[in-house]
């Protein structure tokens, strides 16, 4: 799937494939018991990102130029990174076992105590909004940053409509 995305020269198709990829990921998350994450990925990856990319694409040429066919350096870097990750996985605990270290520390507290602490059944929500709420505050600020960032980048549209070609001024007057 991903390979298909990157081989696709038609960017529109690439974006569509990417949306499908996101949906597949989302269902994968659901299978892995991560309901919240699945919902988010579906909404974001398949929804928002796709819409944004489509809009962006309509602002740009639809077909990718015939660029450099293969990029050897990039390939080498990728292979090295991949190899080191594969090397890492040899020592990773097996998938899905209940006695993995990740399940032994911190997480049990959340599962056992959060209902007493907070009184709501969705542990993810408890952690998100209370135990690690400063992370979530940060997350909201990231979103907010993106919002005003995009405003800053694309916000001057209405003014521009009247003076369409506005080249940046170079070499301005002196004081």
């Amino acid at each position, binding site marked *: 799937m991903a390979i298909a995305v990157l081989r696709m020269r038609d960017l529109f198709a690439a974006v569509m494939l990417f949306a499908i990829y996101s949906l597949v990921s989302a269902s994968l998350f659901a299978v892995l018991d991560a*309901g919240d994450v699945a919902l988010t990925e579906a909404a974001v990856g398949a929804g*928002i990102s796709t*819409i944004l990319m489509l*809009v962006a694409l309509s602002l740009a040429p639809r077909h990718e130029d015939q660029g450099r066919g293969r990029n050897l350096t990039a390939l080498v870097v990728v292979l090295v990174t991949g190899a080191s990750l594969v090397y890492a996985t040899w020592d990773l605990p097996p998938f899905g076992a209940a006695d993995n270290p990740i399940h032994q520390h911190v997480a049990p507290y959340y599962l056992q105590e959060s209902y007493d602490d907070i*009184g709501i059944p*969705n542990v993810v929500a408890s952690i998100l909004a209370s135990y690690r709420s400063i992370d979530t*505050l940060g997350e909201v600020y990231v979103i907010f940053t993106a919002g005003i960032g995009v405003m800053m980048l694309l916000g001057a549209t209405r003014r521009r409509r009247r003076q369409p070609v506005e080249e940046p001024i170079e070499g301005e007057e002196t004081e």
Partner: protein
Amino acid sequence: MKTNGILRVVTRFLIPLIMLFALYIQFHGEYSPGGGFQAGVIFAAAWILFALVFGLDEALAVIPAKAQKVLASVGVMLYSFIGVLGVVLGGRFLDFNPLIPGSPQGAQQAGIILVELGVGITVAAVVMIVYTLFADRLRVVADLTREEID
């Protein structure tokens, strides 16, 4: 798209449903998957759908760009305000316990609901902002090309 009657009818019917779904996710996040973020996205999606079908200007008439900007700020400010409230009432930042003295669970739940509301508002507003700006830009380009053709 604007002329497609069936689509308009279906959309008119769908949008309230989606918004309802968003509200459900927003306030039911404590019991099932979901929360402010997902709710915000879905709410915004409803608005975007509206904009796609009825046009951006119509959509902006419902929630103007200025309001989006204010809402985005209001959301983060709500979240931060709850955090500061914890400090003012004698606890740590984002400490919900002092919100309702004597009932830690209730206080925590109140805190979480308010905080999630802040998240939802900001997310919905930002998604709308981003969509508005991109779509607006799209129109400008379209206008420009039309002028060139003329």
